[in-house]
């Protein structure tokens, strides 16, 4: 681990140091240049995904139907996705299923970005058997926001949402059976949140149920 940190660690500080050293030297080397003290563009890579807008009949139809509910329709690496407002995600799923033949809900998952105000990315992946097309629906939700369940439309959402609840603590409003699924039912904490350490455990649960001091 320490070895891998090094290249990254040494790279990050080096560009600013290099550029900081260059500008004083540059004017002497070529005084003809009009604007030598101009700071170079920030060396940091963009922290966002370099997605391009996704424009197609379907993207336009979704935008038209939901208006402000759709924040973006983008494509990255040839994969299309729709970014919606939190309350529009499930209606978009519904629309895609009923009007655009996206009849197969592949997956529901989440990504935790603890520094962001809307902490979680909630991600739905849908597929259309007739068109052999795959779309992701993404929405940003705050901790404590309860998105609507998709079970009414896709039965498969039942366990998928249970797993998201189990791992991230996102409660789905209207879910028929929102219990933990992979972790023990009385476990405390949500393991896939970023502030849950990899060695962290529910010590009380381990002591009570396994009869040992610690699982480590």
């Amino acid at each position, binding site marked *: 681990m320490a070895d891998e940190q090094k290249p990254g660690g040494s790279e990050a500080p080096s560009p600013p140091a290099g550029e900081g050293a260059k500008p004083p030297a540059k004017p002497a080397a070529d005084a003809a240049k009009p604007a030598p003290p101009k700071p170079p563009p920030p060396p940091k890579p963009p922290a966002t995904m370099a997605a391009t807008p996704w424009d197609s009949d379907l993207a336009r139809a979704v935008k038209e139907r939901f208006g402000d509910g759709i924040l973006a329709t983008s494509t990255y690496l040839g994969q299309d996705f729709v970014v919606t407002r939190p309350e529009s995600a499930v209606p978009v799923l519904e629309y895609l299923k009923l009007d655009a033949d996206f009849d197969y809900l592949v997956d529901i998952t989440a990504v935790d970005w603890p520094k962001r105000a809307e902490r979680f990315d909630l991600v739905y992946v849908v597929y259309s058997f007739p068109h052999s097309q795959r779309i992701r629906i993404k929405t940003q939700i705050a901790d404590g926001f309860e998105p609507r369940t998709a079970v009414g439309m896709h039965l498969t959402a039942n*366990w998928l949402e249970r797993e998201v609840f189990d791992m991230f603590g996102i409660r789905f409003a209207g879910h028929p059976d929102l219990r933990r699924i992979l972790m023990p039912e009385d476990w405390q904490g949500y393991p896939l949140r970023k502030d849950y350490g990899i060695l962290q455990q529910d010590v009380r649960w381990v002591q009570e149920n396994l009869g040992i001091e610690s699982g480590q």
Partner: protein
Amino acid sequence: MPDTFLDSTELVLNMGPQHPSTHGVLRVILKLDGEKILGTDCVIGYLHRGVEKIAENRTYAQFNPYVDRMDYVASVSNGLGYCLAVEKLLNVEAPPRARAVRVILTELNRIASHLLWLGTHALDIGAITPVFYCFREREEALKIFEQYCGARLTTHAFRIGGLQYETYDGFERDVKAFCRMFPPKVDEYEELLTNNRIWEGRLKGVGVLTGDECKEYGVTGPVLRASGVKWDLRKAQPYSGYEQYDFEIPTRENGDTYDRYIVRMQEMRQSVRIMEQAVEAIPAGPILGKVGKVIKPPVGEAYVSIEAPKGELGYYVVSDGSTQPYRVRVRPPSYVNLQALDKMVRGALIADVVAVIGTLDIVLGEVDR
């Protein structure tokens, strides 16, 4: 006699977690009226190891061996899916030689996985013989893996960008020999089972799922195809060069346990067909694409899925531009397919639960991750 003499009461019965026919540590709580099933509840997670959490704390390459431990009877498919997902993020493609060898090994692994399914499924139903036949041929497949990479089960056969190893001398010969040897063996299994009256009696009409129900439950793989939906990711969204090969998608109409058996038997024959074509024309050239020593994909995300022996296996990988994945989500086919168990066994008998768990072909390592 009191009125209650012949009354029945509902009985709740635990099947598993330690039960041979649950293929691992699956606990199914059955609500019974006599022997009839009124409802089920699956309790899973006994094998949960937090694979997705581990991924966030390893580099991309370090996580590669972990994926083998999910569906451990089809570890090659797991590795392929993960490598393809990271390659997608890096925007590189494995060279043609690597793609051909990947296809051969993945199909060989599909056969090995189906053979394990067939042997244990038949054993659950009460046929002892097929398991010995199946393991005999599975051994031949595992020997090829062992020769290739030294491991039989958790192979770690592929590397991000291509292959872990160059093929060994005689690889083509061994694969061709397997392709010649294997189809007559499938005939043997079929002779034992296909028209066997007990086999038919135990499987026909059991655990029926219609095509629409499969889509509702997100069920994929042979289970979906046995319900009349002609859908296979190798054809629908080809990857790793599958579009070059000529093969068919076997389907059946009834969606019962018997049809799923037939579909898997035919799939093994199709896998041999693919392997025969691939091994005839393994291109020469490098086995590793242009991937740096330190794998550092740009900020972004990708969802890549493949047709694993059990259904759609998806990887959703999110990169924050560092050497470690920010998030890896695995969409395991077994987990999603298992959800349909309740639907399939309601109103059936306890013995049918055993048949249905077998026919879903779940691997608990993948369900629980």
